């Protein structure tokens, strides 16, 4: 007698894709019985699967897909049609970026990017704050990111501090980050080095901003998302009382938006 038929072989017989095993069945009542039992059981399995309800979509799925496609469209649009408008809105924030990129890694706090950082459009009063840049290195998830948006916009975001149990040391002091947070933050920022250059950041923001508008970024945070180094970009949302929060990877510097996460929130 040939070897008894395992479950896969019985299934293939029922699916009419295996003739070789039929020879075994003729001499084996045990396997014939198992085949009959399986044949009777399979329709109930199909019925159980068919009875599963259509799973409801997450509420932000549509917006997230729209944002990803919008970023993709802008990244792949021929530059000839985009440059004039983009150049106009870029000059408002591009000179200010030079100051940010040249600065040493800002780990302890936020920098308010201001107009008049050097060259470009100087029509505004020197020192007018445009938006806040932080480098907290925080490893966000969807919940902590949403909670952090108010402090990102206000420029008060700080890296997460580690509280070492029981010691009276300065680790986790509210006045500065712990050594661990320093290392984590600088590691996250180093992975995002392409986005710290003027050209890289400008390339990324151009991909995310709508060139037809004069939108400015509201806040940036060089941080991480679910373990991946990521730049958080807070932009005005479609309506005045909303903000769009984009989380992009280092690839955004090459105009590949590398959108890791997107959400639209009420403006705090």
């Amino acid at each position, binding site marked *: 007698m040939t070897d008894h038929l395992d*479950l896969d072989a019985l299934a293939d017989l029922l699916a009419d894709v295996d003739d070789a095993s039929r020879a075994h069945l003729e001499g084996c009542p045990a396997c014939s019985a*198992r085949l009959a039992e399986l044949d009777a059981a399979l329709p109930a399995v199909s019925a159980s699967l068919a009875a599963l309800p259509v799973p409801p979509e997450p509420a932000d799925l549509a917006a997230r897909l729209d944002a990803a496609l919008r970023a993709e469209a802008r990244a792949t649009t021929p530059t000839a049609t985009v440059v004039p408008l983009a150049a106009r809105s870029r000059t408002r924030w591009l000179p200010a970026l030079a100051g940010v990129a040249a600065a040493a890694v800002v780990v302890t706090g936020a920098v308010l990017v201001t107009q008049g950082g050097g060259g470009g459009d100087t029509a505004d009063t020197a020192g007018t704050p445009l938006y806040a840049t932080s480098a907290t290195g925080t490893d966000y998830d969807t919940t902590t990111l949403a909670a952090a948006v108010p402090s990102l916009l206000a420029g008060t975001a700080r890296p997460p501090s580690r509280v070492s149990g029981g010691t009276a040391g300065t680790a986790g002091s509210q006045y500065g980050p712990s050594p661990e947070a320093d290392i984590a933050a600088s590691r996250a920022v180093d992975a995002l080095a392409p986005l710290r250059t003027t050209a890289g950041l400008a390339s990324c923001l151009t991909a995310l901003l709508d060139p037809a508008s004069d939108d400015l970024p509201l806040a940036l945070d060089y941080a991480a998302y679910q373990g991946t180094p990521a730049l958080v970009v807070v932009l005005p949302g479609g309506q005045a009382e909303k903000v769009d929060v984009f989380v992009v990877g280092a690839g955004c510097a090459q105009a590949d938006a590398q959108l890791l996460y997107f959400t639209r929130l009420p403006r705090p």
Partner: protein
Amino acid sequence: MPPVTTTGDAEDAQDRALLAAHVAGDPAAFGELVRRHRQRMWAVALRTLRDPEEAADAVQDACLSAYRSAGTYRGDARVTTWLHRIVVNACLDRTRRAAVRPTVPLPEQPPADPHDRLGERETQLEVTKALATLPPEQRVALVLVDLQGLSVAETAQVLEVPEGTVKSRCARGRARLALQLGHLRNPDAPPSVPPGSPEPEGGQP
């Protein structure tokens, strides 16, 4: 009955027009195509990957992939077949890249008290958990055929395999689910006894 998720000819004609408009440069066409098919893409991704965040990422990957490769659609299959293929590939890429759900080999013993389970309606949670233990190829085949209601022929087009392969994957997947859900009294093959051997081999091959 599974929801009818395959499109009729009129719907498919509209889908083809949208895709052509997108390739020709219409900035709004692709977004409209996504709106029409987002729910079925989500259903396939969630039932295949089980984790909602992974599924949302896979749908996003699939939309971007479809956006970029729209120029390669040759029109020999329905647009929904083409989209299903892209979503399935995005899901399978994720299962390969990270060990999302390790597949469980056929258990050595049947579940305890199979007689108590027969005739009971198992919970949806038990079914979705059991589905997640299948090898990805079998899981995808059942998601398309038993959940989405695609024909074997259309599923074969989506997966780019022969129809016989689809039937085998579906049957093997359903058999494993029957085992997991306790529908079988005699799941194990009797031990094989080769002629002339003093001891039985025992257990499943």
